[in-house]
């Protein structure tokens, strides 16, 4: 065990001084001489044929450097590559219609890019874009995934269907379990479409070095290397001639885990013009053309015995994919199926996952990405079973938990949960909120006509993505450590943090293990010309996978430093070891060497053991042998105003278990933000298209993300259950809050309305829906 002072401490973040003083460099802050600016013309229609585009007036504008349409790019320049979709679903016959970087002949969702204008300022670019006249012939629109599944109109006429894939699944004997059940419940649960809304919208600036024939693109991305690889394919460029830089990135939440048409197009345009080209989307464009999240209809049936034991689940997941696949679009709903068990041990499942195209923006990974949907329906199902049987929902959870003794536990859907202790975590939460006291208070208040609701959610999620064999693309990640000649230590990480704080946590690990002051450690990320290939930051993998690669690199450095020290001391290398961050000889306290000293000897190169290469650096990659499965219990207490249906959150408490905590302050921050996002899905957020495919929630005046007054104070606690999946013993925490909170809030609100006979209400839980449910005539379930 390493000597520890920094790991586990609440170290203030090393990224922060530049961020709090306004001296950080986001993409829009990148200044390059001779930059020109892009503005887009986007489709105002959900589905239409482009009959003509008149760009003459825009081209004649003296401020304009160029105008391009889909026709220009794909026909005149013959760039026909489709945008990438990463999947291993070929055996399912996944349909992958072409997705060009500018619409070609037809538009399939409101906001699809039709033409791009490049001008000498963002202002003149917008002016010129307004001069472009596009004529359309409207085609049939479908936005409802169930209608789309049933038949025409087709989003892609040539497919003759809107169904992109259908995946059946069966485990155990669900029919027998249903036949033997004491009770069953059946419910359609809509997991509504939401918008990620990072406060920094999509941003990019590309430049083509005509001398060096190299493309450099700064992009607000979570995956600089994967973006580089995909740009090489789409633009037909050698990958070693592309440099992707993710400078400061203003939030991602999965939405920047993608390869966008605009990224490819702006790169291509920069190559045509030989000038830097910048594109910063507006928030309105972001609502239209950044991926959306969720949007599943989950039809569930649950079988249970009268003691509350769940025996089987039937499930149909209808996933609204949008008009095209983005990078991971079809994969997301398959993750929902994988996690359909939650933390419960039933083994009989029959399921079908159907992905359908509609005339909407693509859905893709949004914080949780497929797992929140599973947690939501299973946690709602537990409450519905409890309601039906007159049992306490906590008792039903306890009855069905996977027992501690059965870890590692292989589920019917084929995952192996590494470790868990669900009951301890739940008990800690229940004690902290005084669950029994809350139930008494609820009963008392009901007598006064006040409606308190208590919601519990016990989640488990799959993250630390992941074993390469189970990922759509590579699942490993990388780290390089360089001990520089003058003793400072450079870490190059393949992950690409954008708020998660790994510049700090990784430096904490290095400081402890290599015995150097944290200020002498610099963590570099997000530049494909500086950092070895890495997969990126998503799926709560940054520290679990990237941090593990770092740990391996530390071990390699230590092993070499030990050899160097042993040679100096003419000691047997087997007797030399790292202790408390320093190199020493076992049993001989007089001998001590620091890592920088060993590094300096390695640099000088004149006194090294025979055969040992000079230099003290190492690059290692970590291939996760499994996912990790953090878990926890969230409890939400609400009061619903009977007159208006407005919700007040009275209490929110979360007890999470993400294994070892490297920096508790950062872990708590991730949980806070996750809770807010999940809570916000439960209460406020919904992307709404009308039947014509018009986006009705296209600005922050219509689409609510919460401000400080709309969220409560969160109380946090944790338990620590180790894992052997990675050498750090950690599980990811980036998405857990989002996954745990949505059902806790919904269960609380629906519990509050139990006296009105309410069994389920779909999100978002707008006051009007609750008010309606509380009206005498509408008191039954929906």
């Amino acid at each position, binding site marked *: 065990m390493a000597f520890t*002072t*920094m790991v586990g*401490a*609440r*170290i*203030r*973040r090393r990224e*922060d*001084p530049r*961020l*709090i*003083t*306004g*001296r*950080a*460099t*986001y993409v*829009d*802050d990148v*200044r390059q001489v001779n930059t020109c600016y892009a503005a887009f013309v986007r489709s105002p229609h959900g589905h239409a044929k482009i009959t003509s585009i008149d760009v003459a007036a825009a081209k004649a504008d003296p401020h304009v450097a160029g105008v391009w349409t889909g026709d220009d790019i794909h026909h005149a320049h013959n760039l026909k590559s489709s945008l990438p979709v990463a999947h291993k679903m070929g055996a399912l016959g996944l349909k992958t219609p072409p997705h060009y970087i500018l619409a070609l002949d037809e538009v399939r969702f409101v906001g699809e890019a039709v033409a791009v204008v490049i001008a000498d300022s963002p*202002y003149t670019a917008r002016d010129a874009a307004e001069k472009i006249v596009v004529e359309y012939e409207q085609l049939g629109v479908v936005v409802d995934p169930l209608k789309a599944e049933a038949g025409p109109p087709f989003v892609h006429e040539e497919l003759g269907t809107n169904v992109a894939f259908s995946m059946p699944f069966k485990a155990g004997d669900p029919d027998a379990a249903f036949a033997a059940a004491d009770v069953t419940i059946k419910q359609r649960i809509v997991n509504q479409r939401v918008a990620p809304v*990072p*406060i*920094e*919208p999509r941003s990019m600036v590309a430049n083509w070095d005509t001398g060096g024939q190299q493309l450099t693109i700064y992009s607000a991305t979570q995956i600089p290397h994967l973006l580089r690889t995909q740009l090489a394919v789409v633009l037909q460029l050698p990958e070693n001639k592309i440099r992707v830089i993710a400078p400061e*990135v*203003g*939030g991602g*939440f999965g939405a920047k885990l993608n390869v966008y048409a605009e990224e490819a197009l702006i790169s291509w345009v920069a190559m045509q013009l030989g000038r830097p080209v910048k594109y910063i989307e*507006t*928030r*309105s464009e972001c609502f239209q053309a950044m991926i959306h999240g969720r949007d599943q209809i989950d039809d569930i049936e649950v079988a249970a015995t009268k003691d509350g034991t769940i025996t089987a689940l039937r499930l149909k997941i209808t996933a609204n994919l949008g008009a095209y696949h983005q990078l991971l679009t079809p994969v997301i709903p398959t993750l929902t199926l994988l996690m359909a068990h939650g933390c419960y041990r039933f083994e009989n499942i029959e399921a079908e996952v159907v992905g359908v195209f509609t005339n909407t923006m693509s859905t893709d990974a949004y914080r949780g990405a497929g797992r929140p949907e599973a947690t939501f329906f299973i946690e709602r199902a537990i409450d519905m079973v409890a309601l039906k049987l007159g049992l306490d929902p906590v008792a039903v959870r306890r009855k069905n938990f996977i027992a501690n003794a059965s870890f590692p536990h292989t589920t019917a859907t084929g995952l192996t949960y590494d470790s868990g202790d669900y009951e301890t975590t739940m008990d800690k939460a229940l004690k902290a909120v005084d669950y029994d006291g809350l139930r008494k208070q609820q009963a008392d208040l009901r007598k006064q006509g006040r409606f308190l609701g208590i919601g519990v959610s016990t989640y488990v999620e799959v993250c630390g993505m992941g074993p390469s064999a189970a990922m759509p693309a590579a699942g490993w990640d990388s780290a390089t450590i360089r001990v520089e000649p*003058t*003793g400072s230590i450079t870490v190059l990480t393949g992950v690409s943090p954008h*708020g998660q704080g790994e510049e700090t946590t990784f430096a904490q690990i290095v400081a402890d293990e290599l015995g150097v*002051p944290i*200020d*002498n450690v610099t963590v570099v990320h997000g530049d494909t010309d500086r950092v070895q290939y890495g997969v990126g930051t998503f799926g709560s993998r940054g520290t679990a996978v990237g941090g593990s690669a770092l740990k391996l690199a530390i071990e390699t450095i230590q092993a070499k430093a030990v050899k160097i020290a042993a040679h100096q001391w003419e000691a047997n290398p087997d007797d030399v070891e790292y202790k408390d961050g320093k190199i020493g000889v076992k049993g001989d306290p007089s001998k001590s060497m620091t890592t*920088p*000293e060993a590094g*300096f000897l390695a640099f000088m190169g004149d006194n090294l053991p025979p055969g040992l290469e000079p230099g003290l650096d190492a690059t290692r990659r970590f291939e996760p042998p499994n996912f990790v499965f953090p878990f926890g219990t969230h409890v939400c207490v609400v009061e619903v105003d009977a007159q208006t249906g407005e919700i007040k959150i009275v209490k929110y408490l979360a007890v999470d278990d993400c294994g070892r905590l490297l920096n508790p*302050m*950062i872990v*708590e*921050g991730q949980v*806070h*933000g996750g809770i*807010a*996002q999940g809570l916000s899905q439960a209460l406020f957020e919904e992307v709404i298209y009308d039947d014509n495919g018009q986006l009705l929630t296209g*600005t*922050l*005046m219509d689409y609510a*993300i*919460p*401000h*400080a*007054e709309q*969220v409560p*104070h*969160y109380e946090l606690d944790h338990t620590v259950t180790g894992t052997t999946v990675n050498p750090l013993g950690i599980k990811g925490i980036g998405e857990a809050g989002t996954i745990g909170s949505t059902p806790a809030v919904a269960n609380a609100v629906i519990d509050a309305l139990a006296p009105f006979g309410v069994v389920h209400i779909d999100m978002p839980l707008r006051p009007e829906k609750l008010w309606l449910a509380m009206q005498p005539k509408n008191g039954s379930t929906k």
Partner: protein
Amino acid sequence: MQIDLTVNGKRTSLDVEPRLLLAHALRDSLNLTGTHIGCDTSSCGACTVLLDGVSVKSCTVFAVQASGHEVTTIEGIGTADSLHPMQEAFWTAHGLQCGYCTTGMIVSAVDLLQRNADPSDDEIRAGLEGNLCRCTGYENIVKAVRAAGKAMRDHTERHSVNDLMPMHPPAEEPPPSGEGIIPPFLQEAHT
């Protein structure tokens, strides 16, 4: 047209189009890129600056309207070497993650304490309703503003906020090492 404004205490003249938004003037004409833009409906508050000492959304002010007036941006609030107590408090309380909303949030929080030196948590939340953050869930932002308020009330000098933040006793952070960038053994080797 010609405009004259005082930005972070410095008088400056610019030749601008009337339609140029103050946010763009600050960012693009004056290279003060700490003022961020996060929306197009005056909703998010990332672009918040002080105009004649009070918080405004610089995306909803034309630069020409600011002519003859004083603007303070995040760059004028404090620097890494001389942090404003509010900046120090955001750092210590982990009141930020991606940092994009942070600069506007800090400027708004500074304005909030001008109006109310000792706000309750509810007043802090209400006072920040013009600023959206998607990362933090606001919990640590509220903590930061509370701590900064206490620091500013109790102490006139800066750099005192760390002593006052109950959620982050300084003892938990290991003291900075006395070592410089170049380790002593190397300095010796060179002398």
